[in-house]
């Protein structure tokens, strides 16, 4: 009762009913979260990644199925990789991670590099096109692509090593895999290359950056 008490009277509380015991809920399993329904992800396989997929299938399949506890199968007719959760999938994000992993592979990254996506959370893939940076046509475009990769790919590797990222240059599309800050640095370098700066300039910038990065820790 919420009667105003004028005086300090202690009302004897009615005898409290013993509260029911606190329910102990176990965390919801991903399966249960989705109301017992399986989640699916489908990743299309481009033409040029078909063979590499065939070659690296077991490297892909094993970590997904064994460690991430996600079902994976290849739909040959549709040319897609299909992923499905299992009832004993530990984490609801596993599916997404696996999907990203496979997607990364389809972009062109190596299995070894893409695996990092499974293991580390903070890794992202950024993609952009050359035309996003600068409109180039014909020879200029070709030259820009050449500048980006360098002779034998050494410019690309230099950027990769310096920034601890992985870069894939697929014609006009560029994909960068790494942590957020590193992606930024790599993106800056690549953009400067697209814009026309010579490789030496990019190197010197990278050197400064990496020195700073190394000093940090």
């Amino acid at each position, binding site marked *: 009762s919420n009667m105003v008490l004028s005086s300090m009277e202690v009302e004897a509380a009615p005898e409290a009913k013993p509260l029911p015991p606190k329910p102990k809920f176990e965390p919801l399993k991903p399966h249960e979260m989705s109301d017992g329904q399986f989640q699916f992800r489908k990743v299309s396989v481009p033409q040029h990644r078909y063979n590499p997929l065939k070659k690296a299938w077991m490297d892909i399949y094993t970590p997904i199925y064994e460690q991430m506890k996600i079902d994976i199968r290849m739909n040959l007719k549709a040319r897609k990789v299909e992923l499905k959760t299992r009832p004993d999938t530990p984490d609801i994000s596993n599916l997404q991670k696996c999907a990203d992993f496979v997607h990364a592979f389809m972009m062109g990254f*190596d299995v*070894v*590099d893409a*695996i*990092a996506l499974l*293991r*580390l959370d903070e*890794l992202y893939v950024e993609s952009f096109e050359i035309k996003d940076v600068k409109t180039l046509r014909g020879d200029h475009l070709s030259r820009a692509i050449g*500048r980006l990769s*360098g002779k*034998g*790919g*050494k*410019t690309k*590797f*230099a950027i*990769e*090593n*310096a920034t*601890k*990222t*992985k870069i894939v240059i697929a014609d006009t599309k560029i994909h960068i*895999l*790494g*942590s957020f800050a590193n992606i930024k640095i790599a993106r800056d370098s690549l953009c400067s*290359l697209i814009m026309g*700066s*010579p*490789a*030496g300039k*990019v*190197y010197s910038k*990278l*050197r400064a950056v*990496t*020195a700073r990065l*190394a*000093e*940090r*820790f």
Partner: protein
Amino acid sequence: MADSKDAGEEALRRLIATFQPSFLAPNPALSETSRAASRHLFSALRPFCPKSPLDQLLIDGFDAEQIWQQIDLQSQPLLSSLRRQVKHFAKNPEEISKLKVVPLGKKVEKEQREDWVEESDGFDEELEDDEEGEGKGGEEGMDIEDEDEEQGRESDNEEESEGEDEEEKGEDGEAGDGGIEDKFLKIDELAKYLEKEEENFEKAEEDTRGKKGADDEENTEDDDDDDEEEEEEEEESDEDAEFGFGGEDAAGDMENARYEDFFGDKGKYSKKMKAQLHQESEGSDEEDDDMKFKKQNKGTASTHQKQLEKIHSKIEEMEKANLEPKTWTMQGEVTAAKRPKNSALEVDLDFEHNVRPAPVITEEVTASIEDMIKKRITEGNFNDVQKAPKLPSKVPREVKELDDNKSKKGLAEIYEQEYVEKEDPTSAPLSFRDEQKQQASVLFKKLGLKLDALAHFSFAPKPVIEDMSVQINVPALAMEEIAPVAVSDAAMLAPEEVFEGKGDIKEETELTKEERKRRRANKKRRFKAAAVKRMGKKVQEGALPNQMNG
């Protein structure tokens, strides 16, 4: 000789007898006779003039003019002496009887003289007639008449115009002929003369010394005769008055008796002798001796005079030089402005050279140099300049080189490593870039150990070379303790090691336009300097610079 004499006389007579107008036309026979006659006369008169250089009148092949000159040569002194003697005799007629007999046939001469005087009187008329009709052709014939004319004219002329000299000659001739012995014997005359001379000497001191020879001759003439003295003095004084000569020498005459007093004027005689030398083809010994003697006398006297002149001229020169300013070589310190241009080149200067003189390049020198070169080449001892090693003052910053190759590690491993380094700092990998370098360092460490064992581990302390390692700026405690219970804020690196203060503090977004421009300009400058250095290195190495296409 008698034949010739006779022939001569004969010729004379013939000439006298010829028809005078025939002299006008050239006639060889007449000229022959006249020549012979003149020769005869010449030789007849020869004894009376001892000083004449000609013994005989030279006729053969001689011109009229030349013959005339010869005659003139003889007659001049002769005439003057004759005149003097005549005067003397005119004054002292008693002396005529005292005439000495000259050994050279004076008697004949006397007679001839008398005849000659007569002839001369006779001739004068003829001469006067002939003077009008004279022509060139008649010169030869006129020789004798000319002589006579001479006598007539000269006796007039000499007194008027020529004056002194001839008189002196005459007087000298007289004195030379033979008056010396007489004079010296007369002591009384000497005494008188001395007195007079003393008086004259006083006058002489005032007057200037004029002609020496002339005055001396005059004064010696005074010695000759007491009687003549006055006249002569008068004459001399008259003459002196005419010509301005002083009788100064008269006083000192006895003391300063000179050659001229006795033997006549040297100057005239020398000229005559020269003329005679030229004319005469042959000369007798006597004449030569006489001439030589005369020459010597003239030489000694004149050489002395010449010496005196020389000395005087020298003295004048030296005095002149002393008065003038000295030449620049004698003036002590002389600058270039004070001496004439290029004058130092002509003078042989002596000064110390502070530099070694340039070596003379000879074959030996070049050979020695070449030997040295060869030796050095064989030894390999080139004096190459070696760069001094620059000591590392500061730890060179470890430059993390960009690896162009594909990383062998996968991305996951990279991040894994990074994570591990982050968690456990000590597990940082070694800062060697190359595995090869690592292996090499391991090997060297082993070797170093063995060498140290050889030296019994007592080695010089290692030079302080600072370690080239990356100091990771992690908390100090974290380095020391594995379990970071309490993390200290103190970092391993000092703040200045973290950041020196150099470098771009401001971010690009914070810059103003000018600051951005300045930054860009600095970068460009540094880049250009580095590029130049790189180009230099590449040129040194001999490699062409590769243009890298980015």
